[in-house]
């Protein structure tokens, strides 16, 4: 992001501007803060007190323990980590290989291949699941962790574009120098292109990571069995057994939000740029 623009002085405008910013911040934060308060209350407090009242004991983490064990959150985090690891690695390799092949080689089918990737961007994944389900089922992958991994890997066109944009900025002379030293295409890709693509890899890892961590639809459709819960589906199951136990539901909700918050605080800049780059392609 570039430097902020010079500020202009007038009297009333700044006050109103800040007022609108504070109002918007409250709209964002209050619903989240209330859920955090609720997660620290006992069930008696939830039943008797108002939603906005503070908890009696600010260090009452009992609900977190309950949510974590009864909500099977540990295995949910484990499953999500597994899916994240494999689908992100896969996406990075698939996307960078595609970009390398398309950008560094001349072959006759180049345009049709690019067209295939382009047209696929127009097909929203939401619409095709009815039929995708049959394909996944045909491979015998229904109710396995590999179904989401493959789907996340195989339907990510955005990352292909991020890599393509970036690889164009890497001078071909580097490839050529390596070729003269006797390196083959695979070595050039692995030793030269991939390391130089680091910033693009970071962008893809962030976008993909957040998308996969938050996705509900695919795990919900393809992994209904309880031990295969991801954080989204495990949290969704709080609706049943915990009924109206808002203190437990809130604790589970906060458990899911905290990792996102931590990642966001550490990687803010990259996240903004990543999403801006990913969306506008």
């Amino acid at each position, binding site marked *: 992001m570039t430097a902020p623009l010079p500020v202009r002085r007038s009297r009333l405008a700044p006050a109103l501007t800040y007022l*609108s910013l504070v109002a918007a911040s409250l709209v964002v934060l209050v619903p989240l803060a209330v859920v955090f308060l609720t997660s620290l209350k006992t069930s008696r407090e939830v039943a008797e007190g108002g939603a906005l009242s503070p908890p009696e004991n600010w260090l009452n983490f009992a609900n977190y323990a309950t949510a974590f064990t009864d909500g099977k959150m540990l295995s949910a985090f484990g499953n999500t980590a597994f899916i994240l690891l494999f689908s992100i690695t896969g996406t990075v390799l698939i996307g960078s290989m595609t970009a390398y092949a398309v950008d560094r080689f001349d072959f006759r089918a180049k345009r049709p291949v690019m067209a295939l990737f382009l047209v696929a961007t127009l097909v929203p994944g939401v619409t095709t699941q009815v039929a995708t389900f049959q394909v996944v089922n045909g491979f015998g992958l229904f109710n396995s962790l590999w179904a989401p991994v493959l789907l996340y890997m195989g339907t990510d066109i955005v990352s292909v574009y991020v890599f393509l944009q970036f690889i164009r900025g890497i001078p071909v002379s580097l490839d050529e120098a390596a*070729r003269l030293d006797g390196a083959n295409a695979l070595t050039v890709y692995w030793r030269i292109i991939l390391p130089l693509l680091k910033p693009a890899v970071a962008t893809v890892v962030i976008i993909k990571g957040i998308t996969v961590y938050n996705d509900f639809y695919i795990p919900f459709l393809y992994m209904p069995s309880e031990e295969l819960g991801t954080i989204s589906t495990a949290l969704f199951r709080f609706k049943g057994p915990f009924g109206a136990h808002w203190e437990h539901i809130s604790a589970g909700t906060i458990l899911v939000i905290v990792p996102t918050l931590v990642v966001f605080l550490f990687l803010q800049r990259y996240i903004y740029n990543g999403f801006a780059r990913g969306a506008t392609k």
Partner: protein
Amino acid sequence: MTETTDTAAPAKVPRRTAAPPRGGPRRPAPPRGTLLRRLTPWLFLAAPLALLITFTYVPVGNMVYYSFTDWDGVSPDRSLTGFDNYVQIATRPELFRVFFVSLYYLAASAVQIVIALYFATVLSWNLRFRNLFKGILFFPYLVNGVAIGFVFLYFFQDGGTLDSILAWFGTGSDRAWLGDPASANTSLAGVSVWRFTGLNFVLFLGAIQSIPAELYEAAELDGATRWQQFRHIIAPGIRPVVGLSVILAISGSLSVFEIPYIMTGGATGTTTFVIQTVKLAFQFNKTGLASAAAVVLLLIILLVTWIQRRITPDERVDLV
């Protein structure tokens, strides 16, 4: 998804048009058999293409085929029924009604774009706590959808966050926010505004900040007001991004699934097109009908995209 992706198709990468020094093919690799050399790109493309075809093109093809059958998704036999499924979608009002729910989300998207535009403009100026506000506004976009669903279930429930806040202001309301269709859909669309404004905001902010600063300086010297600056510098400069956001808004409004499914399960008239399709396919085993519905949705989204490209060809607005 803008036109730029077309024009930037790698088929014409300008820096490659210069003839390579040796005048031969660009690859200086020692010729180790032309066959191997011609196969090299395909070795890299094999896995990506296999995945792309398996998980995008095969499903789309199958979906179109299923949509002309009465298949239940399980049984080995299915019979072709022609356009019967499509006729049902067009004539059975209960299948058709879900499109009206999208209007709530479409209205929400309009609100979202306006809010995002306002805050992006405001925060492109030098303000105190600029980064803090930016972070707060963007954060909801990163939060897990199920978590958002629960946060707002508590927000809207009787005696929940919203009722308590209203009680503070002395307007104690005793209404079930998710109790009747109009109010429930408005509430859910409101959640969608809360969730997605941040993305639009960051996109707009990025576009505004890529406008050269000297334009503003020149405008300042000419005594342009803030409004005039917005009107003549910012607005034209971010038109492409706004166009993209409109497309995303329309296709997003048609394919809403998560928030209503998590919060109400589609009860009280909040069923969206995708919730209905999922239920048809996976609860009622009407794969044929669900496929036809999905094909209709896909066609609408393609049509919208095409119209948008007709209306706003991606003109790079040259201000300088």
